[in-house]
């Protein structure tokens, strides 16, 4: 029942690291509240808000696509969309950071969907043995073999599984942050993570990786 053990570890949010992450998250949220309020009417504050979040969102999108050009395009879409609707943003519903990640996740979903359509249109009959869309030529820029292998394996996962893996392990998000970004309950996120890890393991093993 190895999977059960893993589930247990995911269901222990009281571990110290998770608590620390939660308190840092709360402090950042308060800080953001003031900045966003100012940015809703003040262009200088809007600039500060952009500076604060651009690197984080770009990194998230890049780690999700491993394609520099696509990451720039998608990040542009995220910020144009967010700032166009900045004045409609209501703090009560969701912290600003989570809101940006939500927009980014949505952009990524559309990006993958478009890629899937394009490959279906261009490639003719689908070969079930062939790997799902591979990262673009930019992939060579990645300087980690494990990472490239991981990316290939991640692309075999459904979008919702890929999202929770990237958020949790690449971006270091806490469970509560992932809940806010994905708009799902904690139990659902834990379950998604559990299944995502299991599927990822299978994909990595198929790719020839020997787990530690």
């Amino acid at each position, binding site marked *: 029942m*190895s*999977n*059960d*053990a*893993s*589930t247990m*570890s*995911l269901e222990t949010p009281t571990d110290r690291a998770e608590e620390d992450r939660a308190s840092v998250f709360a402090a950042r949220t308060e800080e953001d509240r003031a900045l966003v*309020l100012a940015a*809703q*009417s*003040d*262009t*200088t504050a*809007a*600039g500060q808000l*952009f*500076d604060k979040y*651009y*690197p984080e969102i*770009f*990194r998230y999108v*890049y*780690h999700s696509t*491993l394609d*520099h050009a696509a*990451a*720039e395009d998608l*990040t*542009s879409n995220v*910020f*144009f969309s967010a*700032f*166009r609707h*900045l*004045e*409609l943003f*209501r703090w009560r519903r969701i912290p600003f950071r989570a809101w940006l990640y939500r927009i980014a996740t949505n952009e990524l979903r559309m990006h993958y969907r478009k890629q899937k359509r394009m490959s279906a249109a261009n490639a003719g009959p689908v070969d079930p043995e062939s790997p799902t869309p591979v990262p673009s030529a930019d992939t060579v*820029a*990645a*300087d*980690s073999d*494990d*990472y490239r292998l*991981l990316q290939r394996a991640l692309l075999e996962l459904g979008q919702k599984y890929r999202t929770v*893996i990237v958020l949790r*392990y*690449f971006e270091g998000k806490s469970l509560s942050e992932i809940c806010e970004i994905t708009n799902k309950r904690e139990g659902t996120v834990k379950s998604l993570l*559990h299944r995502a*890890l*299991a599927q*990822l*393991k299978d994909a*990595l093993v198929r790719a020839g*990786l020997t*787990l*530690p």
Partner: protein
Amino acid sequence: MKSDNERIEAFLKGVVLPECESDGHARQLRAQILSRLQAGRAGRGTSSWWKTAALLLGLLGAAALATETIIQVRHYYFYGRAKDGFYYFSTTPENAGTNQVDSIGIAVRGDLDAAGIEQKRKDLEEIDALRQRNARELFRVIDTEVNGKPVGRLFFYKYVLPDGRTEIITETGDESASPAQMEADRQQIADLRQRGQREIRNIIEVEVGGHSRRSLCCRYLLSDGRGVNRFEPDPELPGPVPLTFKQESELARLAVLEKKGEFLGSTQVQVLGRTFSLQKYSFTLSDGTVVTRSEGQPEGPMNGMTAAEGDEFRQLAAANKGETLGTYDEDVLGKPFKFTRVKCVLSDGTEVIQSMGKPGGQR
């Protein structure tokens, strides 16, 4: 022994993520976003004094009657949000509590939370101070004629707030008249009234405890092209009614912003030879006072465009479907403006001529 998922987690934590930077893109995107934001804010600030000065006088004032607006340093307060989505702000009446009101107001379009409302209120005070000092840029003037009758001039001003933000406000010219100008306007309005040259666009009747008052919203076209609205008492039913300012204010809020009255029916009255159709509502104020309030417009055509005609005209103008009649130069408030006259004929045959003036004409 580690579970599969724990092993995968260990693997994930050990993966070295590739570095990713995009400084050039960040700079470019930042500049694009901020410039769009700035442009959007400048445009969004468009607000309508001409519509709301009249409306708020109507709101607060059915009690205002013949009082004239006095320009002074003013405090603004948030009046409320109407069902049409506009946020209404008004100057604090200096003589609140009496039966006289000096107040102007503004409606702001948008979606504001509490902080946004407070920011807007402060902005309006800044704008008011800038207006008093004439620290603003008049960048457009529009004259409109509907079926050959002028409906009044609109002034488009750009205000730069101390923090650099820009607001664009549409005004009638009534908001910033100097005391001397106001006195001249008052005399001209009295003359026009004497000669019957006013258009009654709206009437409001209030009945409380057997006392009645009828107010007429009159529009006057002044000799310099400005169109101004004034609430005036109907000599046949001048009041007063036993309502305090607080009660008048509550009544206005219930009737105009919240539309929370009990419909009692429609009625017709004759005022100065015209028939007005009134909608009558009953309102119960928070202190239990029951007030009947009727409001209505004259039957038959009114000068100007209806909302639907205004929309149609804007669509035609935006699609360049108007006929350019020519250009002319005219001084506006001491500065040369070049006007272009464009004619549009609406689907119901209404002929609208709009003359848009921009700085740069010849003296």
